[in-house]
């Protein structure tokens, strides 16, 4: 506050104070939401871990919550999530970064005014629609030249990748726009082309913002649910390093898809399968939460450098 604060509550102090606390309650509701999420997940997850040991959950290699013999090893689900995330990253990170470079360094003001809203549309399409597209259009199209299963990780991860392109491009572009023009001018002065300026000056200078966008986008890919539930199938599968192609060509199951599968079943009771929902949900929440915090931390560092 650089200007003097002339605000006052006047004669109606009681009313002014009442509104202040009312608005404060609204703001505190967000903290309450976080507390409620953590509490909800913890209560049932702790309950779950009294039936199934924590070690068995984290190191078990078989996920079969409803079919006898039941087994709650989360590793196959983490494997599935990893496959989708790697696939989506291969699509979205290079494309998103190149998009950001184009928008920040090459595009005219007029081009930007068309391209940026068009890119935002990619993030605005409901994920259930992307899942449907992956299942009925992308898979049959790729099936023409690849031995694909009906449900496969490949088309799902391509779709997740397309969905997160705008997250990478918009945050990276913000970081690149924050790079001072004097750095570009200095490079041009030395005879550099736009390519050299973009790749050797702007990208390194904006690196922390770019990393921040990568982490945030991958966190979104990990939490993505409907695309993988519809198009990637429901087959929990451990990563087989000897056959990387097979992972993408066949059906897998991510943590989120496993939650949907249990959620769509008739689980009115309080059995271990129901409680395992919360254990998987807690795992997912912790992973994405840590990634979001890292992204926030990295991003706040670049803000300090250039602003």
């Amino acid at each position, binding site marked *: 506050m650089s200007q003097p604060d002339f*605000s006052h509550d006047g004669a109606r102090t009681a009313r002014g104070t009442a*509104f202040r606390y009312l608005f404060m309650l609204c*703001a505190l509701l*967000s903290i309450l939401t976080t507390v409620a999420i953590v509490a909800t997940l913890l209560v049932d997850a702790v309950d779950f871990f009294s039936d199934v040991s924590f070690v068995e959950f984290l190191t078990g290699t078989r996920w079969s919550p409803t079919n006898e013999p039941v087994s709650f090893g989360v590793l196959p689900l983490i494997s599935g999530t990893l496959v989708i995330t790697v696939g989506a990253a291969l699509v979205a990170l290079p494309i998103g970064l190149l998009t950001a470079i184009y928008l920040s360094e090459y595009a005219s003001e007029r081009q930007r005014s068309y*391209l940026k809203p068009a890119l935002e549309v990619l993030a605005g399409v409901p994920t259930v*629609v992307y899942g449907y597209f992956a299942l009925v259009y992308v898979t049959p199209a790729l099936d023409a030249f690849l031995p694909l299963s009906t449900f496969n990780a490949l088309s799902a991860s391509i779709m997740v990748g397309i969905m997160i392109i705008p997250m990478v491009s918009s945050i990276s572009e913000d970081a690149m726009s924050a790079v001072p023009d004097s750095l570009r001018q200095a490079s041009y002065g030395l005879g550099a082309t736009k390519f050299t300026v973009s790749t050797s000056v702007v990208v390194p200078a904006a690196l922390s913002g770019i990393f921040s966008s990568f982490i945030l986008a991958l966190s979104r890919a990990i939490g993505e649910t409907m695309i993988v539930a*519809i198009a990637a199938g429901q087959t929990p599968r451990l990563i087989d390093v000897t056959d990387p192609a097979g992972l993408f060509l066949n059906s897998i199951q991510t943590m989120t898809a496993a*939650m949907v599968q249990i959620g769509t079943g008739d689980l009115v009771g309080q059995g271990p399968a129901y409680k395992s929902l919360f254990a998987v949900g807690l795992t997912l929440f912790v992973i994405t939460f840590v990634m979001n915090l890292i992204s926030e931390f990295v991003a706040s560092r670049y803000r300090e450098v250039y602003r």
Partner: protein
Amino acid sequence: MAADTSEAADSEFGRVSRTKDTAFRLLALAATLVGIVSLAALLANVSVDAVGWLDWDFLTSPPHPDPYEAGFLPALVGSIAIMLLIALITFPLGVGAAIYLEEYAGDGYLTKFIELNIANLAGVPSVVYGLLGLGLFVTLLDLGYGTIFVAAFTVALLILPIVIISAQEAIRSVPDSQRQASYGMGATKWQTIRNVVLPRAMPGIMTGTILALGRAIGETAPLIMIAAPTTVFGVPNSFLSKVSAMPLQIYNWSSYPETEFQYGVVAAGVVTLLVVLLSINSVAILIRNRYQQDGS
């Protein structure tokens, strides 16, 4: 240019670089367009497939196992009912929180903590919000599996961070000189917020809230977790009715193996959902454009 000797490359430094420069420019442009073009192709495909299926009967009939009889009405009405309730919940809470953070709170640790918390909430996967709804509203508060109330509260919590962040931006864009003028006239803080800040910020707040509602109408995973039925045959008649929604019905139909469903009924559902979404976003953009013309 790998075949060039180093001297030749050196003497043609400028030309080689310019070739590379043009190639890179085109590569970057191609990358920018690839997502947009893919989506456009998919949308064209689904629109063509929906022709002949998306008609008045489809919009006014209940779901049916026979693809030629199947309709979208309960899901359409359900989605709209959920969305209206979400608007009623998120608008006052979101604006209230934004007013507190922008007008009342200082720059202390509590404010920073609340803002970091809101940013993090915006990144929590939607399926986890579904578990919150299941654990809190269904199990603890016993509001019933898959009712309009539970669906609306769950998705409202999900979009609240987006509403708060956009309302904060709208309030921040009101020039401080206007607040000072109001105080100078002897107005209290609340009078200033009500008569000066909110009217100026309202178009921005409305735009942000409506865009967030567009996000809400496409959410599927939270509704699955609170056990909203994927197929409902009657139109909901109270807030405690079990409710389906457009994305949920689409999810359900997409698992039907018949071609008539996969390339017909579901396509019609998808196009309906996208048209509703487009209408919502157009309203938001109309409000924004009008405000930009009026604004000083």
